Every structure is written in structure tokens, then in C-alpha cells.
């Protein structure tokens, strides 16, 4: 496989107001490295505040990294000025969480889909109509002529999200960031959108970065899963392995927190991790998960920041339970 996107030791800090004149850095992403192969889906799973959305936005260069690098097909785009980014922007697209606010209410579906073509000056008016119809067909919004004339308020959440997907597709991108694309859609329709994404991936060879809080959909729709906690990746590896043999106590806790429909659930307490995710302004010392970790090693986890090490082929964890994490 060939590499499409490589993120190296990425840090994104924001300045938050503290008091009247002071500011304090919020460390949204604090040292993340990962590689996306062409044609794969990598899910980034985490809770709110883990930095997963910022990571996705940085991958599209919608936020500027504080330090570290982002390589797209080998070219470092992390510090390019906005004026030089247009070529890159044509090849990477995003689908976002809220299908209600991410579409302009005053634009028809065809206008929404034409906008990226206009920005990048692609096609004659006639060609554009054909491209719009093809994109609508690709996301199964039919009849296409009728759908093209609709306005967002006339469509359900699921249909709007398909318009969002069509808008991302119309430039034939190599890479799509899908940030919680189904979290506002009914559970009964989520799989439909995710299957559609997978099908488009197979047809057009698109690489997906799938940002989600839902490790269960990640298991079924991603090739690999990266678990984020407090601005770091704590575990990354093949989806099946992450679910069946999680290496990091946080991953285990995330998996156990999700109920399956079982009538016996009500008769027992769910194993939970205590407390809440830490603040991004003052993350804990050592391993950031140690204050909530049921397996924390006294004297080590609070002090030493664990490295991400390869425990099994292609399966990495940052945890002192895997002793090599201390040395590397």
C-alpha cells in the first residue's frame, strides 16, 4: 500500500481566555503521529475533548498546526500559506456532523453541489449539470432531476447528509474527512450512510478519516481504529484486534461502556471508569489516563509518559502495562 497522508508529531494548541487579560494554552492535540494508506478507512474514536475533531480539521488544514508536520502525498502542507492551499483543497473534502447547519438553507441542492465546481472553475455549465447528476446518483438521491431542485428544509436528516456527501464527492477527492457523519441520524439509518461511504470508497478509491465517538460503528466500517484520549493516541491498530484484544485500559473501558441489547443488562451494574476526561489546559502528569485507570502502576504511571509501542504487528499502545513503553 502507498501512503496518502502522514501526520508527524502534530500539536495544535489554542489560546483560551483566562481572566481579563491572560490567556492559557488549550492543548487540543499534543503529539499525534499517524499514517493513512491510500484507499483505507481509519476511524478516530474518542470522547468529547479528546482532540479527535481538531485532528480531522488539521488534516484538512482548516486549523494551522502549532508544531509538527502533515504530509499529503509526501508534500508538507502543514505550514503552506492559505494562498497555496487551493490545489490541496480540491483533493480533500469534508462531511460534517450536523446536516442541518452544514448546508446553506437558501441554496438548492444543485446550487450547493455547483459551488465547489465554481470555486475551482471546473466544467462548462452543461458539464456541471452532468457532474451534479452523477454525484446525486452516486449517493442514491433519485430521481436526480427532482432532487437537484430541492432545498435542504425539504429533506430529512439522512437525505441531507447524502447531499453533504455528494458535495464532498463532486470534486472526486482522494481523501474525505467524515466527522461524526451519522451521529445526528437515527440509529436505524446510520448503517445506510456508512455502507454508502464504503461503496464510494470502493468505486473511487477514496481514503476516509472517520471521526466518531461510537467505537461500535468504527468496528464495522473502518479498517483500523485509533483511540484518542486527552490529545493523544493511546492505541491504534486493526479494527477487529482493537475490539477483540484491546491493549489499553481506556479502550477496554470504552468497549465495556456500550450496551448491547440484552435484557440481562438491567440486572447488573455496568463496569465503569470513575471520573471524567481531564481538562486540556492542565492534563495529568505521566500517562494522562492514570487518575481514572483501574490498572495504574503506583510510582510509574503518574510520573512517566508512556510511548506508543508496537505490541503486536501493526497494533500499538501507549501504556506501561506493556513494559517496553518505558524504554523507547
Amino acid at each position, binding site marked *: 500500500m502507498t501512503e496518502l497522508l502522514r501526520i508527524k508529531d502534530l500539536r495544535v494548541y489554542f489560546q483560551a481566555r483566562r481572566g481579563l487579560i491572560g490567556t492559557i494554552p488549550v492543548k487540543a492535540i499534543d503529539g499525534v503521529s499517524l499514517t493513512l494508506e491510500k484507499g483505507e478507512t481509519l476511524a478516530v474514536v474518542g*470522547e*468529547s475533548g479528546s482532540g479527535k475533531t481538531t485532528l480531522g480539521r488539521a488534516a484538512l488544514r482548516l486549523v494551522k498546526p502549532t508544531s509538527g508536520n502533515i504530509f499529503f502525498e509526501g508534500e508538507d502542507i502543514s505550514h503552506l500559506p492559505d494562498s497555496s492551499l487551493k490545489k490541496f483543497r480540491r483533493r480533500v473534502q469534508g462531511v460534517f456532523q450536523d446536516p442541518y447547519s452544514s448546508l446553506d438553507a437558501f441554496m438548492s441542492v444543485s446550487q450547493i453541489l455547483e459551488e465547489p465546481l465554481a470555486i475551482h472553475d471546473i466544467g462548462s455549465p452543461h458539464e456541471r449539470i452532468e457532474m451534479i447528476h452523477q454525484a446525486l446518483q452516486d449517493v442514491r438521491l433519485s430521481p436526480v432531476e427532482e432532487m437537484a431542485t430541492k432545498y435542504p428544509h425539504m429533506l*430529512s*436528516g*439522512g*437525505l441531507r447528509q447524502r447531499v453533504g456527501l455528494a458535495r464532498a464527492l463532486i470534486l472526486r477527492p482522494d481523501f474525505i474527512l467524515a466527522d461524526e457523519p451519522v451521529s445526528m441520524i*437515527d*440509529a*436505524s*439509518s*446510520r*448503517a*445506510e450512510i456508512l*455502507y454508502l461511504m464504503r461503496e464510494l470508497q470502493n468505486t473511487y478509491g477514496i481514503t476516509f478519516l472517520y471521526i466518531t*465517538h*461510537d*467505537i*461500535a*460503528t468504527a*468496528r*464495522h466500517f473502518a479498517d483500523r481504529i485509533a483511540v484518542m484520549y486527552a490529545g493523544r493516541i493511546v492505541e491504534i491498530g486493526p479494527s477487529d484486534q482493537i*475490539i477483540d484484544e484491546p491493549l489499553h485500559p481506556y479502550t477496554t*473501558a*470504552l*468497549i*465495556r*461502556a*456500550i*450496551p*448491547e*441489547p*440484552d*435484557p440481562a*443488562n*438491567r440486572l447488573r*451494574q*455496568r463496569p*465503569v*471508569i*470513575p471520573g*471524567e*476526561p481531564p481538562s486540556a489546559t492542565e492534563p495529568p502528569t505521566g500517562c494522562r489516563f492514570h487518575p481514572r485507570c483501574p490498572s495504574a502502576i503506583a510510582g510509574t504511571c503518574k510520573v512517566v509518559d508512556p510511548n506508543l509501542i508496537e505490541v503486536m504487528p501493526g497494533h500499538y499502545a501507549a501504556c506501561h502495562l506493556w513494559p517496553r513503553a518505558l524504554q523507547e
Partner: protein
Amino acid sequence: MSLLDVRDLHMHYATQGNPVRAVDGISFQVEKGQALGIVGESGSGKTSLSLALMRLLPSNATDYRGQVVLEGEDIGDLRDEDFRRLVRWRKMSMVFQGAMNSLNPVLKVGHQVAEPFLLENKGPKDLAKERVLQLFDLVRLPRETVDRYPHELSGGMKQRVMIAMSLVLNPSLVILDEPTSALDVSIQAQMMNLLKDLKRDLGISFIFITHDIALASDICDKIAVMYAGEIVEIGNAEDVLIRPQHPYTRKLLDSIPRLGSNEAPQFIPGAPPDLTAPPPGCRFHPRCPFAFDRCDRESPAIITIEEGHKTRCWLLDKKSP
């Protein structure tokens, strides 16, 4: 006798055209100390049902009728003023969806929890303070949280405040509308454990409204599946989750991505119907893979599968030709 017995409850919304038939003939019972789950997609009428039960009727509510018997008393007959004085918050309270974001930002949360208590008991304030501290212990909030403002609390803590507030006048039934949907999964699990404890230790009954049937299984003894303003299947959690009968219930269960299996999740094609003009016959028939000619003509009868397990589906009608 059931704690709550609802029969043929209706509530529609007036529009310029046909009314929206959001709650369209709902019947169920809730037993003391048990939890009933109301599960359905958005637009199925589950939140409207809770508003109808609490008699918090939107200004365009119309055709509000049916029988609601709480602790043996027909509360449907009460005048609005008596309902407010005797029932709402005292016998039956509610945690609204997203309510944690409606806390008053300039009042300490302890004060906000005490408010219903102060209105009820015009006695000394220490009594209210004592009650609030007791509730904060119960929902496992540190006692010093009473003097905090909402912005100082996390989402999970605010939701605990909302649960404390719902319990302040000792109701026997609490309606929870998607109480965990804005929370992270690890906090959601903590919240579900808390609700289980409240149910077991205080014998409180819950109506638990959610779109997530897996989450419903975490607390509910009985589950009702709602579709297009109607209950299409109701039964004990075991019956509905292990032996689902209605095609919609089965499809809902199949749409959940399972962590423990390779079986890929399914989806239900199409969308729930427009409730101003629901489909004739069975309202699910346009999306049902098993629909036959009877389904689009006649509304299905309620069929009892086993004791306490009922469904509305012509496939299960033994007398069906």
C-alpha cells in the same frame, strides 16, 4: 394495580392542513418500581407522548383525550390547576431532553434544585437545604456542588443536578427523555448505573424515552416500540429483545452495530411517514419487507403473543387468510 395505566391516549398538533397525529391511541401500564422503555426513531411521537402525560401541552395541541390513571386516581379528569398542584412534580416528574442546558446560568445549582421544594413547603430554608444535600448525596454529587453555578459543572454533573431536581418532591414516577444522549459513553454508563441504583433503592418507576433500544435494555423491565404515533410492540424486555415479533422491532435490533459479532448492522430503508397523512392500514407497511395486500388496507389488530407481550402486525394474526 399498576402505578400508571394509560388507555387510548391521543394528542395531535393542529397545523394549517391536517393535524399531526403525534400520539395516536397509546395504551400501556407501568408497574411500581419498574422501568418502561419507549423506543422509537425521531418523529415517532415519543417526546409528544411524555408531554401529553405531563400535560405540558403545546399551544397547538388538539384532540387531547384518553384515560390516565396514576396510583388509582384518574388524573385525566383533573382541572389544569389541580393537575399542576397535585400531580406534576409531586407524583410524576420529568427530565427533559437537553434540560441540563436550560439551567439558569446566574443561580447556584443547589438553589435551583430547592425551588420546587420551597414553593411546596413554605417552612424554614434549612429544611430545603437539608433536602438538597440529601439529594446530592443520592445522585453522588459532592456536597459543595450546591454552591456552584452551571458553567462550573461538566455535562455529566449537570445531568445529575437535573435528576436531583426531578426527585425533590419524592415522585413515584420519573419520565426521562433521552437523559444520556448528550453525554460521552463513559459518562453515559455512569448515569445508567445511577438510575439503576435509584430504581432499586428508592423503588422509583421510570419511563425511559430513547431512540437506542440497546440503551433501553440497560434499565427497562418492559419495552414499548413506537412507530408513527402508535405502539407497534410492547412486552417484557426478554420478550421484545429476544423474541421480537414486529418486523419494525426486528429491524431496529438488526440496525445496532454489535461489538461482539462480525455480523454487519442493517438499516431500514426509507424514512418514517409524515404524521399529517400517515399511510393507510399499517403505518409501517411502506418500509416493511413482509407487507402483503392486507397491510395497506386495514389497520392491524393488537395481537397477544404471550402474557404481557403484544404487537400490531397482520403477519401474526392466526385468523389471517
